[in-house]
């Protein structure tokens, strides 16, 4: 098995799925000749040709809209958007159309499209290049939202996303692209969407995270008896795994790098309050970014949840 970073693992998944299924096409700005701005589609033009690996004009709304049409007509388009912040221009196509074609056609056709995009902070770039606006998309019925936390998960989940009959937003934590290397099994099964992973077992507190926060949570929780859940899919999310863990530990800390208000943590907290209230020994804590746009460079350390901030919440919740 090869040791791959996330860039290579995503490239592998695309390669495998394009070889397996000729309905899969890639499109986006600079994905073909240039191999993508993060080099994720490197070599795919050479391998699969210009009919399947397509450089588009600079027009996000057009790219997503065209992909919707391709998907509705039986192709399996995989779109690359260069940064999550650039996807905002395509909101209308996603919210008004991709998410609703299935219901609007009363189930007669759907929209099996994947939008891949780098996401999240910590790369010392400014706003729009460090966005973590996953909750916006989780709010829309009809779209699935996936966030891998490492190379193997990225490969397995991307395969599942491409095979899924409905639109999937696939958020790739930019900070992790070249940070982690792990064994990525070529040819292995896809990972199921909607299924969380217990990253570490523990008894006293449940910590839920996803994407690049997972690595930070694992560091922060090392000295604690904490159960760490890597959510992997945010929509639909794995309620059963989270609830079972909270029922066992009686405590919950949610860590996300997105801003707090109406962040995905609020959804988790509300569900736990409704379903596992009597198992809770103390309040649910959220460790998040403050409700401000992503700042530049050095201030980012003050903005993103840090190991210290996560540990402070753990100490606090463990007092109950």
């Amino acid at each position, binding site marked *: 098995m090869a040791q791959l970073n996330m860039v290579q693992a995503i490239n592998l998944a695309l390669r495998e799925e394009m070889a397996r299924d000729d309905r899969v096409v890639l499109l986006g*700005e*600079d994905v073909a*000749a*240039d191999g993508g*701005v993060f080099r994720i589609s490197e070599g795919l033009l050479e391998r699969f040709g210009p009919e399947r690996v397509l*450089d*588009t*004009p*600079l*027009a*996000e*709304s*057009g790219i997503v809209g065209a992909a919707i049409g391709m998907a509705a007509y039986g192709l399996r388009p995989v779109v690359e958007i260069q940064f999550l*912040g*650039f996807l*905002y*221009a395509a909101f209308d196509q996603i919210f008004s159309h991709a998410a609703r074609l299935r219901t609007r056609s009363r189930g007669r056709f759907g929209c099996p499209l994947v939008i891949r995009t780098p996401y999240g902070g910590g*790369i*010392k*770039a*400014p*706003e*729009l*290049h460090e966005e973590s606006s996953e909750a916006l998309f989780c709010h829309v019925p009809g779209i699935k939202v996936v966030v891998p936390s490492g190379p193997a998960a990225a490969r397995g989940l991307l395969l599942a996303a491409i095979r899924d009959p409905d639109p999937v937003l696939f958020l790739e934590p930019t900070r992790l692209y070249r940070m982690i290397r792990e064994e990525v099994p070529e040819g292995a099964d896809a990972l199921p969407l909607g299924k969380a992973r217990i990253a570490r077992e523990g008894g006293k507190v449940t910590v839920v995270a996803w994407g690049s926060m997972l690595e930070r949570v694992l560091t922060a929780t090392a000295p604690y008896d904490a159960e760490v859940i890597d959510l992997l899919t945010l929509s639909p999310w794995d309620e059963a795994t989270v609830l079972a863990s909270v029922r066992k530990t009686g405590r919950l800390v949610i860590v996300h790098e997105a801003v707090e208000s109406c962040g995905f943590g609020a959804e988790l907290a509300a569900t736990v309050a409704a379903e596992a209230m009597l198992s809770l020994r103390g309040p649910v804590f959220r460790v998040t970014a*403050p*409700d*401000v*746009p992503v*700042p*530049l*460079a*050095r*201030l980012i350390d*003050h*903005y993103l949840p840090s190991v210290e901030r996560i540990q402070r919440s753990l100490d606090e919740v463990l007092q109950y």
Partner: protein
Amino acid sequence: MDTKLRSILPDHELIRLYEQMVLCREFEEACAEQYTKGNITGFLHLYSGQEAVAAGATHALHGDDYVISAYREHPQAIVRGADPRRVMAELFGKATGICKGKGGSMHLFDPNLHFMGGYAIVGGQFPIATGLAFAARYRREERIVACFFGDGAVNQGTFHEGLNWARLWELPVLYVCENNFYGIGTEVHRSSALADIHKRTCGYDIPSERVDGMDVMAVYQAVKHAAEWVREHSRPYLIEAITYRFRGHSMSDPGKYRASAEVELWKERDPIPNFAKRLLGEGIAGQPLLDKVRETAAAQVAEAVKFAEESPWPDDDEVFNDVYV
């Protein structure tokens, strides 16, 4: 180029244009060095090669005209009058930056200079230019809006929305396309069905022209004429300046999509030495003066770097400011 420079502008303004181009080049090259040293982080898009457009166009505008641009905009802010020290500090993320060190390279703003922003979202500035122009007309002001953008940006829907609207409502927007032939790695013929960008305005009944964007006087004259026309008629106009960026799209671009021979060919048309030759040839400046210009610019940029290095970081709590009043 038969027209004598002196018949277009007085000597001191010609020298001023040269000074500005040199300052921009020195500034951008210093940015590259500071990026390599790790003092500037994130994405850094340099303007080297395109100086004639910023310098020539800005010189043709009034001081209170609005300027709005994209993310390759340090020189545009500088020729507009932004203090290079505070621009450099912004790139470093320091508290003394022109946006308090919170925006960085792509988001320079200075309303005092009527510099209404760099926009990191390609095409983000077009509809905003429409609104600025509407407001100027509403207030019965003489101002126009100069909206700068690249060849890649013209395929965003916002470009077409902006042009149609500006013509329909007769708004004073001067569109300046800096066609450097590439949007990141995508060559203009691979992204635009009609790569002659100035011709695309015919769908909106907007007059337009193409100009040599490596020739500061050609840019100045075209923009001067166009800006006056826009001001007089309160109608949009588009200039396509043909230019070239000497460096990669950003500092992280290996630039595999273009041959080094192509880059070298364009470097022969470098707007700075070519303008220097004309200044010398027409006896407007001697070599000692030109040398002095470069030394002064280099010193000014060194001072900007020093200022940025020595400036404090923003306070941590600065992240909470300026979200709402």
